[in-house]
């Protein structure tokens, strides 16, 4: 460990070989982030926030940055059909692909450009916000991302702008991206009183190892609202280590629904800072974990001032030798009176070999607050199963129905209801893959 630290990591050597931009703020930011990564390295199990993560084989491999220009035409049709009439930006292996994207008829007050373009143009919003929020000092993959990211989406809403059409961001890892790393970024700045609904969709080539570290920074000004549908459907060989970081102003609202079914190792850290009075955050999600997969949601909800409310409701379904983590922080600062914060995590184990870690963390320093949490890990209810069978349903059908009902409940809070069919179909296929077990 110490010996390894004396040498430069292969990522640092790679970083140093990349050309500087000449934009001082950006070059400095990247250098600091790289230093943050170099100091932390790949996290090991002795670090509390990573105690359940086995990253040994990630650390042993090397994933160089993926090049632009790969083709994904075959896959794209499915992507676009899933959310019709959307404003759409497509990223292939982390790079913006204009020809796959659809930015026609942008409503007034909405700006959507690629970050590469914004960096090039010396854009002031990126200067003010890019890499300023995601914590590179604490999260090694946020650090790696800030150091290496060269592209992504910049979405800016002028004050008062209401965007009716959904804004969809597809991040796709192509066959050319196999064995490579991508660092797609999203920067959203929603001006006062503006509103937008986003879909962040991650997918990629099957059966191939790759690394993706998507980092989204979402700044929601006073009384603005951002809703995010997050879909982690990375390829089943992927290391997916992402961050969603949200800053909320006074009366600002953030609603997120996350679904994950992909990646060999999939972790998303969701940071929400409620900085202004009356800010509201709602984080919901469902993770569906197959044998050999590891799924992890870490939430960091920090109430920094009064009258904020937050709710978190995550459910997991695990099969075979699957492993999951839900680790949820509710932090209520000393002055954050009248906070209402709730958290629930429920896990359904379909196999005795599956493991679900559920770890609520409550740090409450204000006295006049309403905070609650609950967490469960259990199997299918044997009484319910018998009840259904006693009415004629086969064992397999009964199990399937109970699993589906358990998972489906979380889809009521999807922020992109037009994707509900897509997620339900994924769930149904997953159950068809003989996971419901039983006979008949």
């Amino acid at each position, binding site marked *: 460990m110490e010996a390894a630290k004396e040498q430069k990591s292969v990522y640092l050597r790679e970083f140093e070989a990349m050309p500087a931009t000449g934009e001082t703020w950006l070059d400095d930011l990247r250098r600091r982030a790289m230093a943050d990564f170099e100091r932390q390295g790949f996290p090991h199990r002795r670090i509390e926030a990573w105690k359940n993560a086995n990253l040994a084989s990630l650390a042993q491999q090397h994933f160089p940055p993926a090049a632009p220009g790969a083709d994904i035409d075959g896959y794209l049709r499915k992507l676009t059909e899933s959310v019709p009439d959307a404003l759409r930006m497509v990223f292939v292996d982390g790079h913006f692909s204009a020809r796959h994207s659809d930015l026609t008829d942008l409503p007034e007050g909405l700006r959507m450009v690629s970050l590469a373009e914004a960096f090039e143009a010396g854009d002031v919003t990126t200067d003010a916000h890019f890499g300023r929020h995601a914590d590179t000092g604490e999260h090694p993959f946020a650090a790696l991302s800030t150091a290496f990211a060269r592209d992504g989406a910049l979405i800016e809403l002028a004050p008062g702008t209401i965007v009716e059409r959904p804004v969809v961001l597809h991040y796709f890892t192509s066959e050319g991206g196999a064995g490579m790393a991508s660092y797609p970024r999203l920067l959203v700045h929603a001006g006062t009183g503006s509103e937008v609904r986003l879909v962040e969709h991650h997918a990629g080539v099957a059966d191939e190892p790759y690394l993706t570290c998507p980092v989204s920074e979402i700044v929601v000004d006073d009384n603005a609202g951002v809703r995010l549908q997050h879909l982690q459907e990375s390829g089943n060989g992927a290391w997916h280590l992402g961050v969603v970081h949200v800053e909320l102003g006074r009366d600002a609202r953030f609603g997120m629904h996350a679904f994950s079914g992909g990646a060999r190792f999939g972790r998303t850290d969701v940071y929400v800072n409620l900085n202004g009075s009356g800010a509201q955050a709602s984080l919901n999600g469902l993770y569906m974990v197959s044998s050999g997969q590891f799924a992890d949601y870490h939430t960091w909800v920090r109430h920094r001032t009064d009258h904020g409310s937050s709710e978190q409701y995550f459910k997991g379904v695990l099969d075979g030798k699957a492993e999951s983590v839900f680790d949820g922080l509710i932090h209520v600062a000393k002055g954050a009176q009248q906070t209402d914060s709730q958290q629930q995590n429920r896990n359904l184990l379909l196999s005795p070999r599956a493991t679900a870690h559920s770890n609520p963390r409550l740090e409450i320093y204000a006295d006049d607050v309403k905070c609650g949490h609950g967490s469960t890990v259990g199997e299918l209810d044997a009484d319910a199963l018998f009840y259904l069978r006693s009415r004629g349903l086969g064992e397999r059908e009964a199990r399937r129905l109970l699993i589906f*009902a358990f998972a489906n409940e979380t889809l009521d809070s999807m922020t992109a209801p037009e994707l509900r069919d897509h997620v339900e179909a994924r769930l149904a296929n997953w159950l068809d893959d003989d996971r419901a077990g039983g006979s008949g």
Partner: protein
Amino acid sequence: MAMLEIRNLHVSVGGEEILKGIDLAVDAGEVHAIMGPNGSGKSTLAKVLAGHDGYEVTQGEVLYEGEDLLELEPEERARKGVFLGFQYPVEIPGVANTYFLKAAVNAIRKHRGEGEIDAMEFLKHIREKMKLVKMDDALLKRPVNEGVSGGEKKRNEVFQMAVLEPKFAILDETDSGLDIDALRTVAEGVNVMRTPERGFLLITHYQRLLNYIQPDRVHVLLDGRVVKSGDKTLAEELEKSGYALFEDNAA
């Protein structure tokens, strides 16, 4: 031959014998009542007949329409027309009553070699049965047994029975905890379904039910044994003197 024939049935849970040799035969068209105090084994008998795998049959057999019932999976029994109304109906969060009933109806139809029920036909069928048990439409969209009173759950059991039209129904204390209106509804549900082809086993704690449903036979179950059988006057006798009378017989 009787529709349901229980011969020398012994059942254990965790090594402890709970049913200690039950003999009982119910013919098609008959209603038999089983009465017994707390813990006498009534629900154990009901669950064994429905195929619950938590009970071990150590001796004896059960024939249903001449077939070995104990060999069948719970769903096979249901598809062949056996119905259990649960003493404690189970809540199934996230599964709407209509969806559940349709799945059950179709499972039974499939077993009979029939196709899936037509949506309109299904709706008409369940509306008719809802009227019978005086339930309102709102129930259909609600999750099975969730957030309703004990009485509503019992009524829902009778509703399910009416919808599924079993050949042999076992009702485990479907009358317990009901006020008189609900009890009348439950009784009417049973009486309407009483036909020469159908058999009933009514498990009850209270003689009151038998004022509304006239049984053909009454059996007294005590400590895992049928200690006395008779006609409906036995229930009245029991109401007056209590189980103590039979405890002497059993000893």
